[in-house]
Every structure is written in C-alpha cells, then in structure tokens.
C-alpha cells in the first residue's frame, strides 16, 4: 500500500525557471502562447503566469494501457510553446515506461517511489483504454490487470488526465464488437477529477496546454464529456474556413472536383465537423502548418465518444441515422437540404439587416 509517509516538498515552477536562467519575459512569452490558445485576455496572461510560477513542480506519472503510443509520439513532438522543456524540465516525469531508460523491476520501483513521495499530489496521465471483459484479463502486466493497476495508481493522484480517445472513451479498442470490453478512465475511476483530452491523437498543444492549465489553476471548466471547454468549446464546423460554403449550400462531390479545390464544404464526403468538438480548425497541426480539412479530407470525428462506430468515414454525418444502408443517399440529400435551408435563412437575415441599415 502506497501512502504519504515519504512525501517531499517540491520546488515551485518559478524557482525551477529562475535556476534554469529563464527570464520573466521569456516565461510571459510562453504563457502568452498558452493563454492565446485558450482564448484568454492579455490581463489573464499575467495572472496565469503568476499562478504557474507559484505552482509546485509536479510529479507526473504516465501510464499506458491498450494504446498504440501515437499520443505519446504527438506529445513529444509538440511545437508551441516549446513544451518539450516544460515536460522534461519543469514537470518531473517520474514514470513513463516508453521513454524511461529503466525497465522491468527498476521501472516499477521508480513508479512506486514517485507515488509514495508525491502521494495525493501527482498528476496521473493515462494513455490507452482499459480492458474490463472477463475481469480484465485481456490487459495485464506485472501479474496485475489494467483495471487494478489503474485503481492503485489513481488512488494517490491529484487529478487524472486521460490523453487520447482510447483513454477518454475506449476509442479504437472499444470499436464494435469491443471484444476486450475496453472503456475509458472515467468509466472506472469515480472519486478523482478526470480530464479527458480526446483525439487520435489529441493536438499536442492541447495536451500540454491542459497540463499547464491544471498546474496554474486546477481542473479547468469541462464539458459533459469531461473535455476542457477552452479547447473543445466549438465544433470543427463552427471554426472551419469552409463553413461559408456550407452556409451557401456549396458542397464538394468528390475529393478532387473543382468545388473541393475551391474550398467548398466537405460535408457530403463524410466530414464529421458539424458533430465534432475539437480545436483542429484553429490550432491546426504540425506547428500550425495545416489540418485535415485544409488538406482536403473531411474531419473523422476522432475526439468524440464512439467515433469508430459512427458509420463510414465517407458517408455524410446524417447517414448513421438511417438504418438501411440504401438510405444513405437520402441522408446526403437531407444534409444538402439543411445546408440550403441554412443558406436561405442566412440570405433572408442579410436582406433584413441591409434594410435595417438603410
């Protein structure tokens, strides 16, 4: 049993930064990057920086279950705002068996030591789904099921960050028929704050931004699927640069037609933008280079619960509402009708506004 016997006092983030010779304005620059991503006003940046400097350097225990390591790869390739430094210097990443040099008993000892020394205060990051079928025997390591491992390590955590759609909602592992009974962290742990950062993988800046936001001000405001509203508050569709074409009822019919090349809406090609909450359209990927819709492919809805079972990726989002496959065309037509109706309504609003302005 791990307890608080050997709890250690950790330095603050500010002390760590001072020791590393990181200037205040350099730190403010980093905070400005984070708060801009979270759409916070400049005045809040100063307060955010102050809170973050005062936070104790956290111990982070990163545990992987049914996962593919894609989320970790994305996280370690985070561009803005140079979070490799934050992850590896400012936070104390005490256990991650993919990144750490130790293996076997030595690695497990490092985990137990971190749990003991930081009991009640460490951040637990979970990557991957947890198998529950047949008492969890489909996922085991060191003679313990993933369920038992998770319960043990969660007990002393201040909060749990579930990274990726698998840790959040079961994701790929939970796809129909879900033979291992895969579920997300919040389905098992009920007595600790769980913050879901879904995606396949999640946007690196969202993962690191969520960790930093927790350090500065605790558990952020979450939506009904336990996602931070600062990053998952809008649908992809709401912030999509192709949205204006949807409003005008202009849809690409194939991936390389003239409409697609001119930026028309990819709704009919299966884009899940209207039902997917994520920040891809604004933060983008690879240091803001581009994102799937800008590259010409629709959103696949990877940050939503049950995203593998939402129908074909190349069927309109409404298709799954129709039981018979043959009715997919009707669904597409329905989508177009909705788009056209929205366009008409927008036109009417514009006319009315013009009249009022005159």
């Amino acid at each position, binding site marked *: 049993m791990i307890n608080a016997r050997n709890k250690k006092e950790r330095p603050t983030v500010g002390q760590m930064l001072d020791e590393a010779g990181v200037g205040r304005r350099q730190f403010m620059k980093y905070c*400005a990057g984070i708060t801009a991503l979270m*759409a916070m006003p400049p005045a809040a940046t100063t307060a955010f920086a102050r809170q973050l400097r005062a936070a104790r350097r956290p111990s982070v225990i990163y545990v992987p279950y049914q996962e593919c390591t894609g989320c970790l790869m994305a996280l370690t390739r985070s561009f803005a705002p140079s979070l490799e430094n934050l992850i590896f210097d400012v936070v104390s990443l005490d256990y991650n068996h993919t990144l750490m040099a130790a293996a076997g008993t030595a690695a497990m000892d490092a985990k137990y030591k971190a749990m003991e020394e930081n009991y009640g205060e460490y951040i637990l990051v979970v990557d991957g789904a947890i198998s529950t079928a047949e008492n969890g025997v489909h996922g085991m390591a060191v003679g313990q099921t993933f369920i038992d491992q998770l319960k043990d390590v969660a007990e002393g955590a201040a909060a749990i960050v579930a990274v990726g759609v698998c840790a959040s909602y079961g994701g790929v592992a939970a796809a129909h028929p879900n033979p291992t009974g895969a579920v997300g962290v919040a389905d098992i742990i009920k007595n600790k704050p769980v913050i879901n950062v879904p995606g396949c993988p999640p946007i690196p800046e969202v993962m690191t931004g969520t960790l930093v936001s927790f350090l500065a001000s605790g558990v952020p405001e979450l939506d009904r699927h336990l996602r931070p509203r600062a990053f998952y508050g809008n649908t992809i569709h709401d912030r999509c640069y192709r949205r204006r074409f949807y409003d005008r009822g202009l849809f690409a019919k194939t991936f390389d037609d003239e409409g697609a090349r001119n930026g028309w809406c990819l709704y009919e090609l299966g884009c899940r933008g209207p039902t997917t909450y994520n920040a891809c359209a604004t933060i983008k990927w690879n240091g803001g280079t581009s994102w799937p819709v800008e590259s010409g492919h629709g959103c696949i809805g990877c940050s939503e619960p049950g995203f593998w079972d939402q129908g074909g990726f190349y069927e309109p989002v409404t298709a799954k509402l129709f039981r018979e496959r043959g009715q997919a065309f009707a669904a597409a037509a329905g989508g177009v009708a909705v788009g056209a109706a929205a366009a008409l309504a927008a036109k009417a609003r514009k006319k009315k506004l013009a009249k009022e302005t005159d």
Partner: protein
Amino acid sequence: MSGAIPLKVKTSPKGVTIGGGVKAIGYEIQTLLERLLSDGESGAIDLRGLPMAPNEYEQLLAMLGVGELDLEIDLNGPSRIRETAYPGVWWIQHKDREDRVLSEYLEINRIPDFLCAQTDQIEDAVRELSDRLKGAAEYD
C-alpha cells in the same frame, strides 16, 4: 479639437478594400477599443484562432496598417510587437528559435501587457536596489 500629438502612420489603411470576414474582425476590434476607453479593460484577438483564408489574413494586416512603433525582441526566438495605424491596437507575434510562430494576436491595450514590468518584479527590484544601496553605503 484635442491637443493630442498626431500619430505618425507609416501606411494608411484608407483605400484598402475590406472583405466580409475581415470587416467582422474590424467591428470586434472597434468594440474592444470602445471598452478600453470606457472601462480601461484590455482585450485580445487570437489570430491563429480565426478561420481565415490566407488572403483574408493579408487583408486584415493591410486594414490595420502600421503605426509608429515596431519592436523586435529576442527571447529564445524573436518576438515582434508592432503598433498598428490605430492607437491602442497592437499586433504581436512570438516565434521560437526555428522561426515557427508560437502565438500571434492583436492586443487592444494602452501598452502591451507583455512589455509591462510585473508587480512581483517591481517588488524584487525595490528589494535588490535597497540591498545594493545599503551595501554601497557600507563602502562609502
């Protein structure tokens, strides 16, 4: 007529054609400027968070024009703080060492918060200067 010193504008935003999306941002800036005047409350618009096509981004920068101040600071990568043709509206871009944009936003403020010395820094300064002066006195 106010006695304010006129701002020297390097590029005038007049005559620039403004598209619908950019105009909407313009109205938001106007609202934030009015709020700054009435309540003293600053605001910001994250330029990376707006669904803009590349030509709209150029249009926006053209609409904002260029004001008197243009600062470049090296803080583990360049940071540029430029006053626009509209006093109180600042264009700020932070980059990393590899020249990748970390953040880019418009700040509606009398002076960008980033440039202001923070309270805890000033407290440190008082303490450090006081120690220094006391030390100096001992050597006198």
